[in-house]
């Protein structure tokens, strides 16, 4: 018995060492991927720049000494491409981490802020602010720029909370109820957003279309600077939830037995999802499927441990969204596809495959 245990122990040691190596390689690959995709993204557009040129321009800008012949490229890179790429990284990270958080919270790999109507709720409130905000201005005077993200955040929080209350009975969250309630809430938010389109003028209508399809177009340093203080703290806070979410995979009672303050964990997770999704929707509209595809790919590659899954989701989410944005910008040049169409075109078939592959194991 004791020699058996020792042999098994050695096997476990070896397995753990292999796993540590795999995690290390994964993060190195993801880090390199984020850098490469970012450089490519900055180089892509009407003014095409080779990766070496992009690196040279960025270095020149950082050192503050931009030679005359680089001035035009530097203007494009710093003024247009860089904020858009950074915004893509932030929004992609926020959406993927929100997906992983919701899946951990609902104890189900199919939960996603887009599918569950959270993004629609955020978009509804943002649309309400666009259309009705100007009437408010007449009463209150000019509204600060942060009002729009705050409205989206409020919508995301309200939807996530409602969803949780509907789908959870006696500490158990029903998957079927969750997805159906998400569809219903999403449809309701969509219908109300539709009502708002009747009340809107032409310019507002263009803005509303942008919300419903999602786009990183119109990214500015101001937008990036508005969402960064919302998304970066979420990304920093998320690792502290990893242990609790791992325990929660056993069930709420079991997590409590293991010493997790379950109610607090759930409240914090809901709040973080609402902040991240609200901020994302405020600057880029509804971008679906990032939150479901990214964590799932990572679980296949490295397993479900949230201590690895959450930070890796941030990196892969940012990378994939910047990649999708490159496709959105180049597929129908010189026009631009809404990025939500690109992520849906890739993500929806993936989601269907996920349903078919997991039909037996998932209690649907």
């Amino acid at each position, binding site marked *: *018995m*004791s020699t*058996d*245990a*020792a042999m*098994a*122990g050695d*096997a*476990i*040691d070896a*397995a*753990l060492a292999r796993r540590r190596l795999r995690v290390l390689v994964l993060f190195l690959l993801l880090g390199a991927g984020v850098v490469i995709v970012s450089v490519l993204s900055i180089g892509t557009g009407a003014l095409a720049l080779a990766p070496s040129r992009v690196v040279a321009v960025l270095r020149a800008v950082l050192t503050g000494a931009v030679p005359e012949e680089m001035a035009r490229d530097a203007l494009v890179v710093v003024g247009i491409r860089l904020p858009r790429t950074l915004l893509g990284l932030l929004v992609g990270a926020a959406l993927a981490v929100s997906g992983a958080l919701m899946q*951990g919270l609902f*104890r*189900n*790999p199919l939960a996603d802020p887009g599918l569950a109507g959270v993004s629609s709720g955020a978009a509804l409130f943002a649309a309400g602010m666009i259309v009705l905000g100007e009437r408010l201005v007449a009463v209150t005077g000019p509204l600060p720029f942060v009002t729009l993200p705050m409205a989206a955040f409020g919508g995301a929080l309200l939807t996530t909370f409602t969803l949780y209350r509907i789908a959870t009975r006696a500490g158990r969250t029903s998957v079927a109820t969750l997805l159906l309630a998400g569809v219903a809430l999403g449809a309701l938010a969509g219908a109300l957003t539709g009502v708002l389109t009747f009340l809107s003028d032409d310019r507002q209508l263009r803005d509303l279309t942008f919300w419903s399809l999602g786009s990183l177009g119109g990214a500015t340093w101001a937008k990036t600077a508005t969402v960064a203080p919302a998304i970066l703290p979420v990304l920093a806070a998320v690792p502290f939830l990893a*242990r609790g979410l*791992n*325990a*929660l*995979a*056993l*069930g709420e*009672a*079991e997590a*409590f*037995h*293991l*010493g*997790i*303050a*379950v109610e607090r964990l759930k409240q914090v997770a809901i709040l973080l999802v609402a902040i991240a999704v609200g901020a994302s929707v405020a600057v880029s509209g509804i971008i679906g499927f990032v939150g479901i595809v990214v964590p799932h790919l990572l*679980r296949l590659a490295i*397993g*479900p*441990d949230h201590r690895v899954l959450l930070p890796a989701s941030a990196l892969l989410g940012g990378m994939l969204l910047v990649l999708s944005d490159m496709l959105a910008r180049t597929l129908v040049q010189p026009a631009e596809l809404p990025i939500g169409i690109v992520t849906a075109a890739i993500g929806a078939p993936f989601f269907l495959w996920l349903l078919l592959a997991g039909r037996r*194991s998932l209690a649907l």
Partner: protein
Amino acid sequence: MTAVVTATGISLEAAGRTILAPTDLALAAGELTVVIGPNGAGKSTLLRVLAAEVAPASGTVVYGETPVAAMPPWRLAAKRAVLPQSAQLAFPFTVAEVVRLGLDGAGNAAERMDMMRRALAAADVAHLAGRNYQTLSGGEQQRVQFARVLGQLMVGGRREKHLALFLDEPVASLDLRHQLGLLEHARRLAGEGVAVLAILHDLNLAAAYGDRLVVMKAGAVFADGSPETVLTDALLRDVFDVRLSVGAVPATPFVLPRPSAGGAA
């Protein structure tokens, strides 16, 4: 004997129905208490209240000197562990990862590894360490959960002098060998000073392993004492509504579990 867990006047109601009548119960260090009773008698409710998972409508549960209401979850986790009836996992964690969940706060990595090995071996699941928990049979899953619970007790033992272990129908899905193995281990833990409470349906196992039997009926403790004093024909008839005779040997062949000689060794 030292009382590890002391419940005074605990009761619980749900939807106007009494599911636990006011009850006093103390779990002593070194004692293996077995709770028996028909379905719906309130056994699991009693366990949940004692494990501080559910707050009683009235009465108090005290661990050592401290009321559980005054303890945060992480402090409770160092004082008691709970084996659930069954646990479905939401994601494909490996067996080692599941057991690892019980080992947070286990000092350094070497200590944690040592505890992991001992817990896996004690539950006879070391050979499954790398397997996906979701693909295991119900009995194997139950043994993995037992390993996780043992790990949690090892970690708790570093900080706390008195520990409690709650087992909710721990052997329901196990084969005979592992039923006996698990209960042997539970009794060994009791021998080391842990206060153990187990819910069992098999009266033979209850009599063989329990130092003390608590019989529940309709949300109240019906009888409480040593197996010899509690298990009588009259009690079985009154509580379980079956006609069984205790200690009589029927004419047909029968199997009785035989606890290892020498009691708690």
